[in-house]
């Protein structure tokens, strides 16, 4: 039961924060994808840097549970392209659509229902699709800190690359001053 309570509380905090940055606003997300709204992609990259530092600290302290997903060159790549097309169409992610549906946005509820349908279809064909697309090019749970030693170098590399991304977005994404 305490796992359910922890999940619920974590979700409430998560949903509240992503609404406040505008990630549950499909208009802002579309503008982020059109490269005229830099705040949300910059926010995502900075969140990754700060989370990576926190996760690094947790590992040093020996607290928490970590499970990096495997990389399948074919399936992860194909799935990312399918995901990106869907993300461009709707402007919501599998997480943001729950918070946006809670806000009362009709198109987020449509996304959520579409997501349940997409999940059901993939789950139905899992036994065919995973051996076909995922398994043959699965190169395992590879992480940067496994081959860049000591691991702090991998963390520094990640922070440098993502900071570069934040700066590049600041230069390339032309901010539309008429945005609310």
């Amino acid at each position, binding site marked *: 039961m305490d796992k*359910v309570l*922890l999940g*619920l*509380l*974590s*979700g*409430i*905090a998560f*949903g*509240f*924060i*992503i*609404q406040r940055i505008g990630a*549950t606003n*499909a*208009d802002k997300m*579309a503008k982020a*994808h059109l*490269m005229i709204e830099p705040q949300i992609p910059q*926010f*995502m990259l*900075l969140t990754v840097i700060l*989370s990576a530092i926190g996760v690094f600290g947790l590992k040093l302290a020996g607290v928490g549970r*970590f499970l*990096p*997903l*495997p*990389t399948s060159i074919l399936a992860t790549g194909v799935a*990312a392209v399918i995901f*990106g*097309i*869907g*993300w*461009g*169409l*709707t402007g919501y*992610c*599998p*997480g943001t*659509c*729950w*918070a*946006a549906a*809670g*806000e009362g946005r*009709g*198109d987020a509820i449509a996304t959520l229902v*579409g*997501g*349940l*349908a997409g*999940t059901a279809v*993939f789950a139905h064909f899992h036994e065919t699709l995973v051996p076909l*697309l995922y398994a043959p090019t699965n190169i395992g749970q*590879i*992480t*940067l*800190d496994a081959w860049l030693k000591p691991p702090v170098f991998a*963390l520094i590399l*990640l922070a440098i690359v993502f900071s570069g991304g934040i700066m590049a977005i600041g230069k390339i994404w032309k901010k539309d001053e008429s945005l609310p």
Partner: protein
Amino acid sequence: MMHENKSPYWNLYPAAAALAGVIVFIFATFGPPASSSGFVSTLKGFFQAVLPDYVAAKEHYQLIPGPGSWLMAFVLGMAIGGFIAGRSFPIPVRDVPEIWERKFGPSRFRRYATAFLGGFLILFGSRMAGGCTLGLFISGSAQMAVSGLYFGALIFVAAIFTAKFIYGK
């Protein structure tokens, strides 16, 4: 920052620090945060009630715990968090985004149909890759997983091309 920015949205630096705090809390108390698994959890609960033999026979539903799990509580919590945040925010919510209405008109049906298709694709892709923006890109990259970095780079590129195709210049 006290310049003339009257936007009710938060500045990205404190917002990113707050969200990273929640993410690190989740790693410490549960494990890698994930959203798309919550869809599987929800569906598993539904199918267990109406088609229990089907759920028992399908591998995808065996990989993810059903309702009563952290995963489902998390997505429900997100809906509650979104509700509280939306109710305490000065900008009213819309069913059809402004940018969509300017290009395609105010028809709800058209927007909802597109949103449904987009939702279908993001979950189909997430379940194939094993995670979504949060469960694979953010969680994975925070653990320095190559899968998260690879997925993250490609979803941005594909979404940028798709948005440019839909909304044009």
